[in-house]
């Protein structure tokens, strides 16, 4: 990905919590996990206890994912400096991911039709989020035509340990998710607009994504008839 590793500053304010400071974001991690990542020791070998506990193994991988995402956002903020630019870039990255992710999702979940937007939203919330983030979302706030809904996420692994500092208040930290959904739906003939209504990093109680179906674009015959 080309993210350069930078040294973190360490502040130990409480015996069990290390705060990594590398402006502009701070990540606080319990000491045991921090030592694992900062000293770049080889990962612990699976011991018999974890062999029978897939939850523990998944938990270790999840941490790496969260920290990697944090590193990307931090690097984008350093490179682009403008919060709006970072939001746009995250959305574009999400779009590129979504365009590929949709095939993997379709193959694993055996979904065969994408005609009804209501059904599609339920499938994204229950199956899609579960498959890739490990959490389920709920769908609510349908409008009268059935073209706009909200996906509500109570638990979001991307934002574990994250606090937004004051100079990044316009940042949509999880904007990659809106790009992923937009990209994936475009590949199944649905043009959508995805925006954040509520964001836990800005003080709300849940994450709320509004997905609005603009139009459904069925496949057209791509070749011109006179060729």
């Amino acid at each position, binding site marked *: 990905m080309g993210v350069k590793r930078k040294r973190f500053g360490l502040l130990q304010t409480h015996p069990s919590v290390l705060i990594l400071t590398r402006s502009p974001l701070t990540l606080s991690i319990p000491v045991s996990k921090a030592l694992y990542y900062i000293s770049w020791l080889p990962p612990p070998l699976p011991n018999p206890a974890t062999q029978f506990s897939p939850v523990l193994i998944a938990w270790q991988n999840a941490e790496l994912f969260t920290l990697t995402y944090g590193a990307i956002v931090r690097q984008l903020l350093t490179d682009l400096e403008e919060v709006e630019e970072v939001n746009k870039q995250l959305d574009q990255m999400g779009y590129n991911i979504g365009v590929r992710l949709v*095939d993997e999702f379709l193959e694993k979940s055996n979904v*065969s*039709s994408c005609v009804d937007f209501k059904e599609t939203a339920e499938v994204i919330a229950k199956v899609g989020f579960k498959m890739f983030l490990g959490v389920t979302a709920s769908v609510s706030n349908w409008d009268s035509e059935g073209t706009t809904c909200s996906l509500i996420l109570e638990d979001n692994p991307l934002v574990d340990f994250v606090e937004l500092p004051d100079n990044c208040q316009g940042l949509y930290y999880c904007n990659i998710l809106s790009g992923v959904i937009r990209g994936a739906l475009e590949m199944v003939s649905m043009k959508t607009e995805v925006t954040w209504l509520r964001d836990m990093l800005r003080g709300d109680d849940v994450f709320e994504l509004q997905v609005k179906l603009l139009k*459904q674009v069925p496949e057209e015959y791509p070749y011109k008839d006179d060729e």
Partner: protein
Amino acid sequence: MQFFGGTEISPSPPAPTASGNNAHMLYIFNRNGICLLYREWNRPLKTLSSQQDHKLMFGLLFSLKSLTAKMDPTSVEKGNLGVPQLPGQGCSFHSFRTNTYKLSFMESPSGIKIILVTHPRTGDLRDSLKYIYNLYVEYVVKNPLYSPGSPIRCELFNKTVDQYVRGLG
């Protein structure tokens, strides 16, 4: 979480029944009509240039899909012939057979079409096509050097597909 889990390909492939080279050709198209992959194992007669051949194949399937949906006796509402369909709308055909070959077809909701032409006595290849789609996801989609919408130039994918198809009965 799924993405750092094991890299075994799932589901496991349907067991090959007979050895031998039974398949003639494989095509993979995307939703824009671009031929992502064309593999040929046994094709004695070639009458068209590859571009025309791909266009013909894609056009044939596009029209067949539309025709079969229109002729469906069990569906309540039928669009007009030629009106483009949404993924999953209408019935979906999966194979046709002539006296010299059988063509098996699978389309994913994202528009990826997989076509396998084999000898006429081949059984139902829907599971095999699903497995090839699985291979496509694992080797091509997840490959960061591949840009979606361009022809596939991944040797590992070609080899795996060749091996798998040779084992099909």
